[in-house]
């Protein structure tokens, strides 16, 4: 045998070895697997529930991939292919909006019984163009808590809080603190007559941009701006949580996820809703809904019916939602009506009561940036500029011009 032939034979032998090595695993075909992706807040809880979930889909195995962060999950989802993607995905409402557009999240057929088990708003938040794209799990919203050493009962108007702040300015850092940035500032915006869009017949009216309403302009100038034309620090949404925990701010706008750090302090608090400029009116917070989504990859993986069954028999049920909540040790209000009522945590109950007052966080509109920038960027920049001394009216008008284009284009579809 000459050298050339030995080389060819060697290469063929190596190839045969590689192919046979590949053939071995296929002989031990495993059960069909339903793969679920979630972030670091929900993933570990799902890992604890793999057995429970498996009982809802006998014949399948359930595999959970827990990502280190929400960003990591989002990043992996953006890069997912039919070869790598999950069958079910847990995430916030933005996944529904983007997935419906991209075609990688499937719309669901929801039975009347399941529809009735959830609040109407919960399914609306996960709907795009009238189609439902997810089973709601929990509600991401905020509520007001007030330091009971400063207010024995809930303040009646924003003016009450303002007067208290001005009177005790020497010892206070802020009057109202949003623990969750500009997203959590929504009750203050709406309490002062602002916000994103108006409502007509109880439905969002995207042609009515209230970001620069006359009332909001006047109230921002009255309550949020000092004599020097800059912020009077009555309201802060950036790094103000420490002051509340130190007892130097009477009011905070908080989410369920903020509660453990607050409860670790000596601050005594009670729940409520941020009052408006007149008694009996209240600011309204965003009510975002997280959900479980059926991906288009479930079809390519041949597990769509099984994944659908897992959605309906576990995630959409009272028992499933309660066990998920228990495993998460989360204080977010559950989306399932009877499951939420059975949640014993007092903070979850407080937030849950406040969530009644929330407004739908319509991610498609808020994330639209056809006007140049999206809602959060416009709001952040506008507040920064106003607090730094720029003219309130001009700044809000400029922001509203961008938002008008965004919302109009969102409404067009």
């Amino acid at each position, binding site marked *: 045998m000459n050298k050339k032939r030995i080389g060819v034979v060697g290469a063929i032998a190596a190839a045969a070895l590689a192919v046979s090595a590949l053939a071995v695993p296929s002989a031990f075909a495993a059960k069909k697997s339903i793969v679920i992706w979630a972030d670091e807040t929900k993933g570990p809880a799902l890992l604890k529930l793999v057995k429970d979930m498996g009982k809802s889909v006998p014949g399948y195995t359930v595999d959970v991939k827990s990502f280190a962060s929400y960003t990591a999950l989002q990043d992996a989802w953006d890069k997912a292919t039919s070869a790598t993607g999950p069958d079910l995905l847990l995430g916030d409402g933005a996944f529904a909006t983007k997935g419906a557009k991209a075609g990688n999240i499937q719309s669901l057929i929801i*039975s009347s019984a399941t529809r009735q088990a959830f609040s109407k708003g919960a399914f609306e938040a996960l709907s795009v163009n009238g189609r439902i794209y997810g089973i709601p799990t929990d509600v991401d919203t905020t509520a007001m808590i007030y330091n009971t050493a400063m207010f024995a009962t809930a303040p009646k108007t924003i003016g009450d809080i303002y007067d208290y702040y001005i009177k005790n300015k020497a010892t206070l850092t802020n009057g109202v603190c949003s623990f969750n940035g500009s997203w959590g500032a929504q009750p203050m915006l709406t309490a002062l007559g602002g916000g994103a869009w108006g409502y007509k017949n109880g439905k969002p009216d995207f042609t009515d941009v209230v970001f620069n309403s006359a009332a909001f302009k006047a109230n921002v100038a009255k309550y949020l701006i000092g004599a020097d034309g800059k912020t009077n620090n009555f309201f802060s949404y950036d790094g103000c949580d420490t002051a509340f925990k130190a007892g130097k701010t009477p009011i905070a706008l908080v989410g369920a996820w903020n509660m453990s750090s607050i409860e670790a302090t000596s601050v005594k608090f009670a729940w409520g809703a941020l009052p408006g400029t007149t008694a009996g009116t209240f600011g309204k917070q965003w009510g975002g809904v997280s959900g479980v989504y059926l991906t288009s990859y479930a079809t390519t993986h041949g597990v*769509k019916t099984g994944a659908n069954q897992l959605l309906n028999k576990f995630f959409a049920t009272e028992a499933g939602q309660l066990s998920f909540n228990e495993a998460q040790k989360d204080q977010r209000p559950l989306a399932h009506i009877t499951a939420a009522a059975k949640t014993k945590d007092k903070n979850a109950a407080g937030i849950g009561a406040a969530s009644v007052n929330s407004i739908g966080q319509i991610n498609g509109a808020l994330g639209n940036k056809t006007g140049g920038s999206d809602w959060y960027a416009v709001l952040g920049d506008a507040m920064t500029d106003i607090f730094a001394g720029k003219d309130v009216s001009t700044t809000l008008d400029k922001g509203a011009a961008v938002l008008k284009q965004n919302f109009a284009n969102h409404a067009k579809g």
Partner: protein
Amino acid sequence: MFYKLVGLRGPLALFLKLGILGGADAFMIWLISAAINKSSFIIAGVVTAALVFINYSFITKGSIPLKFLAVGLVFFSIFVVTPTGYTILMSTYNFKTGNEIAKAAAINELINNGIVSDSEGTAYDLFLGKTSNGNYAGILENQVTKEVLYADEKGVRPVGDSEISRDISGYITGADGIKTLTDEEFANEDAVITALRFPLGDGSYAAPQGSNVAARLIQSVVYDPVTDQLENKELGITYVDNGNGNFVVKDDPSTRLEPGWRTYSGFDNFRSLFLDEKLRNPFIKVFIWTIAFAFLSVGTTFAVGMALALALEAPIKFRRFYRGFLILPYAIPSFMSILIWRGLFNKEFGAINTLLGLDIAWFDSPWLARFAVLLVNLWLGFPYMYLIGSGALQSIPKELEEAASIDGASEKQTFYTIKLPLLLQILGPLLIASFAFNFNNFNIIYLLTGGGPTNAIDGEVAGATDILISYAYKTAFGSNFQDLGLSSAISMVMFVIVGTMSMYTLKKSKIMDTL
């Protein structure tokens, strides 16, 4: 040659060669098989080509030089040529959020979205199984009316109580002529069960939604492959292909259906980049800053690096210590340095404001943010220039300096007329490489300022410190709306600019002639 160099020859060398080649072949065949399994046919094709090429190079005696270049060429083609080719290809597609999947997949999704429940949301308890001839059949029990139907793919008919059996709770657990499925059988045939339709005779059908539940559904949207149109039968609307990756309402093309699909769009992305005001204005602004940033970065780091190299050329005390000290910024991973600098510039807690008693929001002002970027890049880049400058200075023959000195040239004259031209001759290629590096210096922008500040209330898309690469990244991945086609077009423009400038400079300076 290699075997001779390491002292190996004869059968041992041959077997070593065959062993390495066989191992590489096995690995590549495994890669091909894995790629085919994952339907990544382009990757499978590229690896197959590499497999053939490497084996040809090493098994035949046709081309000895190929043996030395083959592996490098394979990696070059995988990591440079293929991504470049893919970027060029993507720049000619409308590949963006809403237009990501193939047309067939988009049609499938639109048809799936066109499946709706009936107005009552009719649901059935389902007993599913197979008939003796292997076809699927089931017993449907309406959850409200309790009507019981035998169903198969031909249709439905009423069933009498004598034909079915129930458990203690009243659920149907058996039916004449239908053999139930085991859990494993159900799971293994999921795809078939997903596609099952039991026609109910009025245009609607019952479809399984799990192992024991079905829903009455109506297919409101249908696709006609002959006319390539979608029709919503409920609303009476016809949708046509707009030629740009979406079905649109026939009478109102501004209303479109989503998802769309990615489609070839020729030079549309480039045309938008240069002609659409919303894209062109930020692009020009970013382009100017990118050029300025790259030039100023190379200029400042070169100036400081050379100045230090010249200063330390003289035999001063502690020279070794200074030299070691100066390369420290180069030894620390740049991302760590950048993040530390970001902290130093923090308005509230940063050391710069605290120590100098300032209250400056460094990253809120466009010019201050640009200054900060250049300053940090100077910190990161001068050690490199110092190192190569020191090396270059040492390579200039001392005789030249001595001759100039004898001829009466001052130190300044010697530097500007002898040393600097020689240094530029030596360092020219490295300066061009440094320019190209800074042109695409994503890390410093992303980690220090994130491209900001961006004036969002004026609707600005690009930030004041965004350079083309960070702008391309933002366009591709920066928000919920991702435009990968446009981002690829921006990348192509960058490639052409850097390539042209480098080629022109290299040619003009005749540096390559001397290498």
